[in-house]
């Protein structure tokens, strides 16, 4: 008999331990597990090692003091500026940063997914990403709960022995304790369907020991299995499911809703100082116990304006979107 994977958000987040290596799905403001990040702040997670990127949901974790170290390739909220909490933490030296390349992030997750120890690339050849003076991997490892999750070297250079493509770097696999994805649809047994960019989710979920999926909709497994080619993560790789409509607000979810631009602008403005972040978090995180309260506070009319219009998957500007 199958055990149900359906849990509430609090229960799912309780599975995350301090010092875990974590990856949050989606990218920039698209399909980010924002509600899950807010619950992590509420539960006061500490010394997490953030892999991947640091934009909306991840930046909330930095502001909430959850992140000890970051290994990734992007610390920006796109048109809303550099991720404000990360910017402050970096500039005060209070967070360990180890920059890696974007393609290298993807293929290192792919290596973990394939069970391969490393993969060869030319992505960062010639750049300061490979500067030994900026190699903070050992400082990252010190913070990790399970140090075996991190490689013992950032990279090794060698000459391509097969095709004579010059210098290549051997990039170690990126292994994860936890992967949290926010998706459009999940079956009751955990089969995931994503619309729009898969970002790194289809690799990261298979590179993680534990996968938490928050979804706009939980549907009967038999329904999602009618078209398995459209599914992106198999049920066998998903451990916990949380039904969480609007769980990526103020970001967007393709075919469901668009960005809440005023909310994102307010976040960018307020979080330029730690006091501002605390004020913002008091209102939107600490002052709220459950996601439903967050939605009530936003109000139905505000959310309705964000609802995507078919066939676009977003709200076109000419039809009232993005103000």
């Amino acid at each position, binding site marked *: 008999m199958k055990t149900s994977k359906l849990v509430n958000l609090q229960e799912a987040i309780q599975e995350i331990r301090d010092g875990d290596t974590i990856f949050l799905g989606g990218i920039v403001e*698209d399909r980010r597990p924002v509600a899950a990040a807010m619950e992590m702040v509420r539960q006061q997670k500490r010394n997490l090692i953030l892999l991947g990127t640091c934009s909306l949901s991840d930046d909330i974790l930095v502001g909430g003091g959850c992140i000890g170290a970051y290994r990734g390739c992007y610390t920006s909220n796109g048109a809303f500026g550099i991720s404000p909490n990360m910017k402050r933490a970096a500039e005060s030296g209070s967070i360990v940063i180890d920059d890696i390349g974007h393609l290298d992030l993807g293929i290192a997750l792919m290596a973990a997914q394939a069970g391969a120890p490393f993969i060869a690339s030319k992505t960062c050849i010639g750049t300061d990403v490979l500067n030994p003076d900026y190699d903070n991997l050992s400082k990252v490892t010190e913070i990790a709960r399970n140090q075996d999750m991190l490689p013992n070297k950032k990279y090794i250079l060698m000459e391509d022995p097969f095709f004579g*493509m010059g210098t290549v770097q051997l990039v170690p696999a990126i292994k994860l304790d936890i992967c949290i994805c926010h998706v459009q649809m999940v079956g009751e047994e955990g089969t995931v369907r994503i619309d729009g*960019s898969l970002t790194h989710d289809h690799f990261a979920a298979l590179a993680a020991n534990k996968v938490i999926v928050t979804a706009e909709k939980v549907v009967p497994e038999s329904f999602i299995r009618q078209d398995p080619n459209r599914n992106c993560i198999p049920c066998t790789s998903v451990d916990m499911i949380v039904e969480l409509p609007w769980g990526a607000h103020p970001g967007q979810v393709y075919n469901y809703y668009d960005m809440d631009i005023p909310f994102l602008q307010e976040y960018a403005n307020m979080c330029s100082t730690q006091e501002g972040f605390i004020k913002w978090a008091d209102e939107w995180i600490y002052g709220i116990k459950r996601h439903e309260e967050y939605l009530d506070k936003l109000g139905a009319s505000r959310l309705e304006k964000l609802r995507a219009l078919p066939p676009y998957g977003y709200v076109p500007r000419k039809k009232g979107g993005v103000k």
Partner: protein
Amino acid sequence: MTKKYAQIGEYTPTEAMVAHAARFLSNFNGKKGLIGTGLPLVASQLAKMIYSPDMIIFVETGQADANPQELPISIMDSRITYGSSWQMGDPEGLYPLSRNEIDFGFIGGAQIDKYGNVNSTFIGGDYNKPEKRLAGTAGAVDIGVFAKTTVILMAHQKRRVVDSVDYLTTPGWMVKKWPEGTMVRREELGMQGGPSCFISSLGIMKFNEDDKIMYLDQYFPGVTPEDVKANTGYDIDVSRATEAEPILLDEIRLLREEIDPLNIYKMR
């Protein structure tokens, strides 16, 4: 179409930069480009409208032949997904680069040096405690390494256009050979490509054939070669420069009314 020119003062330096970048993209009509976030997205929208309608856009968040119907807000935006030929994830979005399929990459940045190396990671201070932390590598590294050529776009200021970047994010013509960090020609590390030009808010810079140092090729109307010299952090050669064609009223109208009516990209 008769060309009606805008007067100096009727547009901002950023709008001029974006319009000239869109014109430069006419070199890539029918070619495949990987477009970076920020103003390159804006300029590619303008190029598609008037200079390069058959340009094929790839984006690092996994879209092939993207045809956004309105300006994307970020590098992953539902606006890029809708109407694209193919939507996968970030790795698949970057593979066309590492497969050597991409004819040109188009990026912004925060600092550029005389060899066209671009910094989008940090400025000032130390890596572990920078004065100003920026976005990091994102697609900028991948584009600079793998695209057959790159086009670079950023505001022209003395602290941005420098002798040597604080952090080498996107490789230009002279790059770092590790573990020593010696500066070598990119070909020495088996890298193809290299930047073809830097389009700034003052003019268009290109690279010498022999030593690959950046020189002023064109200055925008209202700007003098001396202005470029005064706003450049190394002794830039301006002796070969000519004045660029003025900005068209149509370019400004499209940018303001059609492409970014809400001024999301703060061009004005």
